[in-house]
């Protein structure tokens, strides 16, 4: 990246972080959502009995929470750009459009990772105490979170740019986002499951799923990157 683009990238990222630290809009709404989801999970699992192995459904529950939570954040991230026409001011500047995509995606990725890292221990605290522990090393879960969040933030940034310009922003993002993220979500649950259960064969399965996540990230984020200039200029 040439010098100016780098300056612009850093400035947009910094601005989003400063604004978030000031308003705490995204983090609080996403965090609250995660906590509320866990309350719902408690109800959902209430009749499942004592001997039921939570680890079997835990990967799915985690990603259900994360996928819906991420949509809240993604929506917010463009609403404030649109609010007072700031996006136009950004587009008026001599800025390469992909720089906007990269900086917004990285910002969204950061916020996602923060909320994920905060809510996972809470999940473990509420649901895994006194149960069997995590079968494989914990870094494996961290790796899944990181890998899958890239795909969520990258594709999500493009879709949020679209949905913020439509009527019915929130539901629009969900309608576009969930089916597109399906393969990523499937792989993330697969990899998380392999990491949580542990035991023979899970390492192979884990890396198999991780390869899918990597492939999705590379292909879909590259396409989103390529399409961004058209979408933001429309």
């Amino acid at each position, binding site marked *: 990246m040439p010098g100016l683009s780098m300056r612009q990238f850093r400035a947009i990222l910094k601005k989003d972080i400063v604004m978030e630290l000031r308003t705490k809009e995204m983090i609080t709404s996403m965090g609250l959502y995660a906590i509320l989801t866990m309350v719902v999970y408690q109800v959902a699992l209430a009749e499942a009995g004592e001997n039921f192995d939570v680890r079997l459904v835990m990967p799915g529950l985690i990603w259900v929470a994360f996928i819906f939570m991420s949509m809240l954040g993604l929506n917010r991230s463009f609403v404030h750009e649109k609010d*007072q026409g700031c996006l136009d001011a950004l587009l*008026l500047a*001599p800025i390469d459009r992909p720089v906007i995509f990269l900086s917004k995606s990285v910002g969204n990725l950061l916020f996602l990772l923060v909320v994920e890292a905060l809510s996972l221990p809470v999940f473990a605290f509420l649901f895994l105490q006194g149960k069997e522990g995590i079968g494989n090393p914990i870094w494996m879960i961290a790796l899944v979170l990181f890998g899958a969040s890239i795909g969520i933030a990258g594709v999500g940034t493009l879709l949020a740019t679209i949905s913020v310009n439509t009527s019915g922003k929130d539901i629009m993002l969900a309608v576009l986002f969930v089916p597109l993220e399906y393969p990523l979500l499937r792989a993330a649950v697969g990899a998380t499951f392999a990491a949580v259960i542990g035991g023979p064969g899970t390492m192979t399965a884990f890396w198999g799923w991780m390869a899918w996540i990597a492939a999705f990230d590379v292909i879909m984020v590259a396409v989103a990157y390529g399409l961004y200039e058209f979408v933001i200029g429309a």
Partner: protein
Amino acid sequence: MGDMPDTGAAVEVRGLSRAFGLRKALDDVSFSLPAGAFLSIFGPNGAGKTTLVKVLTTLLNPTGGSAKVFGLDVVEDSDELRRHIGLISHNPLLYPDLTAEENLLFFSEMYGISEPERRVRELLVDVELDHRRLDVVRTFSRGMLQRLSIARALLHKPEVLFLDEPYSGLDPHAMDILDNLIGSIRGDHTFVMISHDLDKGLELCSHALILASGRVVMFEPRSAIDEAAFRETYRATVGTGVS
């Protein structure tokens, strides 16, 4: 930024059109504006005023014809052109959750301005907002927002300023301040203003343009305009021009 290509006209528009399918937002628009001029664009809603300004500010590409600002083509040289233009809109184009200073510093980075702190300080003094520089923009009044918005537009010392109904929603006091500000920078800039207010637009302009249904109905220098006849033409287009 004195490396402007040397041509006579500040804004040169030739056969400009912008259409999607069969709907034409701009249809064969041509005019030429000398440097230092102040152009007021009048016309009914949907006449293509905003589209014209968006094309001239590189936010939209034309579908036919050409438009050049100081010899820079809006399509070919868009990146370079963006360094020479500023926009003041009725929307402040500022982040409500950043302070006045943070907003200006942020946009300084977008333009790659050297010594941004000094430039920002200078501008904040110019628009008389230095005492509020550490306050979040959300707390500003409409007039203060508009002043800060002017500072934002002037950050990179643009040669051409586009004004999109800058007076709408301002109280008389804020209007006076805006008048003074525009007056103080008038000499070194070329202005293109969209206006709904015929009196204000005529008072400020050196050239006037009436658009209706994407076509130029009238383009004249202020000195050649007979005010009564102009008002009549304006009323006629506003009355019937909406398609």
